[in-house]
């Protein structure tokens, strides 16, 4: 029996695996509860209101109240719904998201498993999430759900490709830097990428990567401005419209866990995770605080985008991905390849990437301005001079009534 180590106590292999699984589930539910509460409070601040204050001291027990409500609610299944697809969809949607937790580095030593191909594992497993969504959409035999499911599938595929390409670009940069002092093949694992960012976070080396990754993440999570699949005003809740009670809770749990994990991934890939400003030698406590601070900042940004952005239409959403993000991602990968293979310095990669980002920003700005025509304000005001009507002189009929 290969003895492996969990929190200092060595134990047989499979007990350790089970313990880690239990750890993932526990931590993720707590994190999801915190996120639900956080989102409602932050969203409220954006909308000039206070958010939940009744349950618990300042509404802190709100998410527990939600969970209790969901558990006690009846799990309704429509008669004409397809039994298997409808029942299995929530599990198919939330299991892959929990698996994504495995390679995530919170501090130098705190992670479930430092997989050698951590990044590839994350995206391979995240892809299965869409299968759950499509099963839910088709299973609940509801026109709105079907439309929501089709939109979710189209959006997921078209935003996963640019994200993957950007991750490939980041791995190329990491491999280039790691090859200097070790084997480059460690570049696949997220922890080693974070380990390499003691001095320069990759956002300086790959600003375009960070931008495209954030947009891809928003699209992957169906968050505004990409929340067309669950747009209430058109498809009334999209693929989980027929779900209620705990099944809907699972979808909700999956959504928030995915939000937390992708934000952790983004901050470790680009903002240096536990490593950047203070380096590795500072105590584990400070590292975990650093990770959480970065994650919270980005989560506030994501929630802010939910309050301040309307929804993109499905064809604009698709054309933005295929015609804008994908080409720039490919150019980024090619540029990295050329610079790194000819021994270019890191700052050269950063400069080129920044140039690409500026070009992307300019292109989007141009598209938007051209679409608005000669400027948004196409409404002129003409002075209102009320017309004087020469009323024909009519003998005033004296007020009727006796």
């Amino acid at each position, binding site marked *: 029996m290969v003895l492996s180590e969990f929190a200092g106590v060595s134990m047989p292999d499979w007990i350790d695996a089970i313990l880690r699984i239990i750890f993932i589930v526990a931590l993720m539910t707590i994190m999801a509860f915190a996120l639900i509460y956080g989102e409602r409070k932050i969203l409220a601040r954006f909308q000039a209101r206070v958010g939940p204050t009744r349950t618990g001291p300042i509404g802190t027990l709100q998410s527990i109240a939600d969970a209790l409500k969901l558990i006690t609610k009846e799990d309704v299944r429509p008669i004409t719904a397809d039994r298997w*697809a409808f029942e299995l969809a929530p599990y198919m949607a939330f299991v892959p998201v929990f698996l994504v937790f495995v390679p995530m580095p919170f501090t130098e030593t705190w992670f479930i498993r430092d997989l*050698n*191909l951590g990044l590839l594992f994350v995206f*391979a*497993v995240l892809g299965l999430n869409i299968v759950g969504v499509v099963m839910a959409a*088709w299973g609940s035999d509801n026109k709105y759900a079907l439309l929501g499911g*089709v939109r979710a599938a189209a959006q997921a595929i078209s935003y996963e490709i640019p994200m993957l390409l950007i991750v490939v670009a980041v791995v190329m940069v990491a491999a280039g830097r790691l090859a200097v002092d070790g*084997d480059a093949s460690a570049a*696949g694992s997220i922890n080693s990428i974070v380990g390499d960012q003691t001095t320069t976070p990759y956002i300086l080396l790959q600003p375009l990567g960070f931008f495209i990754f954030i947009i891809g993440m928003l699209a992957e999570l169906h968050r505004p401005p990409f929340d067309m699949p669950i747009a209430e005003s058109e498809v009334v809740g999209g693929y989980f419209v027929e779900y209620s009670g705990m099944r809907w809770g699972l979808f909700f749990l999956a959504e928030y866990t995915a939000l937390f994990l992708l934000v952790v991934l983004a901050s470790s890939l680009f903002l240096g995770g536990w490593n950047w400003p203070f380096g590795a030698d500072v105590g584990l406590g400070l590292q975990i605080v650093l990770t959480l601070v970065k994650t919270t900042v980005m989560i506030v940004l994501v929630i802010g985008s939910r309050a301040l952005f309307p929804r993109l239409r499905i064809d604009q959403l698709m054309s933005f991905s295929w015609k804008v993000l994908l080409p720039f991602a490919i150019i980024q990968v090619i540029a990295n390849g050329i610079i790194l293979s000819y021994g270019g310095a890191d700052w050269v990669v950063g400069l080129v990437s920044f140039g690409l980002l500026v070009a992307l920003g300019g292109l989007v700005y141009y598209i938007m301005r051209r679409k608005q025509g000669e400027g948004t304000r196409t409404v002129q005001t003409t002075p209102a001079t009320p017309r004087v009507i020469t009323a024909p002189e009519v003998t005033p009929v004296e007020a009727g009534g006796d």
Partner: protein
Amino acid sequence: MEDGVTATQVVFWILAVVMLVSAIGVITAGNIVYAALFFIAALAGVAGIYLILTVEFIALVQLLIYGSAVVILILFALMLTRARERPQALFGRSRPLGIAAALGLMAALIGGIVATTWTTPESSSAIQPVGLQTIGDAIFTIWIVPFIIVGVLLSIALDGAIMLASPDEDDN
């Protein structure tokens, strides 16, 4: 290494059973969407087998490409078109032809399996996990020609698909 039942063998047999059941399910599923879901289970089984052989890269790529992209496109197509109500082709006129082709293919496969001499490693720990870098070097040095040919082939297929899908002028 006692030659009793090791953990990997248990996992292998579980995966084998899963793959067999889902493969049969793909063919005999009444509903075409069930067939697609069984297809996913079969491909996930294949990825599992790769994981047992500790060839992580291929397993993850298999899961990524087949598990999410290809199958989603199939489901995508099924949901939008009328395919899901069409009568099953299982009992169509071309049934005998189908059986003959299937038997021929099985014969070829069994012949291939019997003919090759399988070199089984003496124990599961003997297989060294292959690093990412070696795979990268192999692809871009030794196998560069087939890699590019496959790339060209795929792009041609992509253009073909776009040609088919784009509504021809007289449609709307």
